[in-house]
């Protein structure tokens, strides 16, 4: 098995785990963790695509794109956490209830 195949399969597994958690679990902070795991899976795949054999230079575009992606992911996480904290401060809950809406 090549390194590319191994890390690609890892990224697929991570993506599926994150997707399942994002859909099924209700707690908003857990959804944020799941989203970050899915993001990490995508980054892993992009870098695996750009990987050449050991000793050869990898594709720098892959690395630049993932570097940008990591910074964007932390921005999204920070903003989402601020929203969760505000929701908790206003309602005391950390889940979204469809039946009640957001008072």
């Amino acid at each position: 098995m090549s390194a590319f195949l191994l890390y690609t399969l890892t990224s697929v597994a991570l993506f599926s785990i994150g997707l399942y958690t994002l859909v099924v679990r209700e707690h908003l902070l857990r959804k944020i963790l799941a989203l970050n795991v899915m993001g990490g899976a995508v980054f892993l795949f992009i870098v695996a695509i750009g990987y050449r054999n050991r000793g050869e230079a990898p594709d720098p575009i892959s690395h630049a794109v993932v570097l940008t992606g990591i910074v964007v992911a932390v921005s999204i996480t920070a903003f989402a956490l601020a929203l969760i904290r505000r929701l908790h401060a206003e309602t005391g809950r950390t889940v979204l209830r469809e039946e009640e809406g957001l008072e």
Partner: protein
Amino acid sequence: MLDSPLDPLLALGIIAVAWTSLSSRNLFTGVILFIVFGLLMSLAWVRLDAPDIALAEAAIGAGITGALLLDALGQIGSDGRERRRPPHLRWGAAAVGIAVAGLLTHAFTDLPRDAGGMTGAVAAALPESGVSHAVTAVLLNFRSYDTWLEVAVLLVAVIGVLSLRRGVGLSGPEPSGAADDPMLPGMARVLLPVMVLVGGYLLWRGTHAPGGAFQGGAVLGSAGVLLLLAGDRPFARLPGALFRGALMAGLAGFGLAALGLLASGRGFLALPPEHAGAIILAVEITVTLSIALTLTALFAGARQPDGTAAPDGSAGSHRP
């Protein structure tokens, strides 16, 4: 072929830690395991010949994100119990997850492995780019537009976080005396000069080796977070206009470079080879400072000043 048993073990470890983190009932456990996940991902980046990303993942993905998550847990609590979802939803989602995994695996195992990519093109253009490290050249010269917009995303995030604050200024009220413990401030006093040095070093190093504005900015941002955790109130001393200006500095620096180049007859963000190095360094310095201040503000902005969810805006110093 794999040349070491480290890779399969690392891959299994990453999946196992991610699964345990997402499925743990106690959110504190989940967040700590998520930080471990970030560190294992750093190792994966090293194994995939991506040291720039390893640096950024360790500092931003594990460090800053971990600090933000732990701070949020301090407010909302670690109890992650939820309603049990109906079986049809759980089984349906599991089926969708497995189907997605299957489709992705099928798609990825069919990919041509020798598609070439841009390695050769970047290497050919590297001498004219002003730096000698390929990733930095891509980030700040060939694809600098993406980096500029990324700085804008950071700015939007900090505007959003600050907007969600409830009436109290960023500096918060006077500390109540909980900062009597000299240990953390003492460690911060030793560590902060080292962090500033390391941040600057990473910034400078990016021109010729793995490093750059984001890694340096992340270390400096972590220094800001450490300052806040040690009980200092840096935003109380920072005039509001200067704070807002410094947040904008990265975006503005890039914008000035872009418009200046446009005005001088070259293309938008088309760096001339003879000045590229200087322009890149100048832009990188402003971006680093901006990132550092933004990450610190993202951390400070989410905290309620007294650690609780109290909404009153009575105890406040000036709004920055």
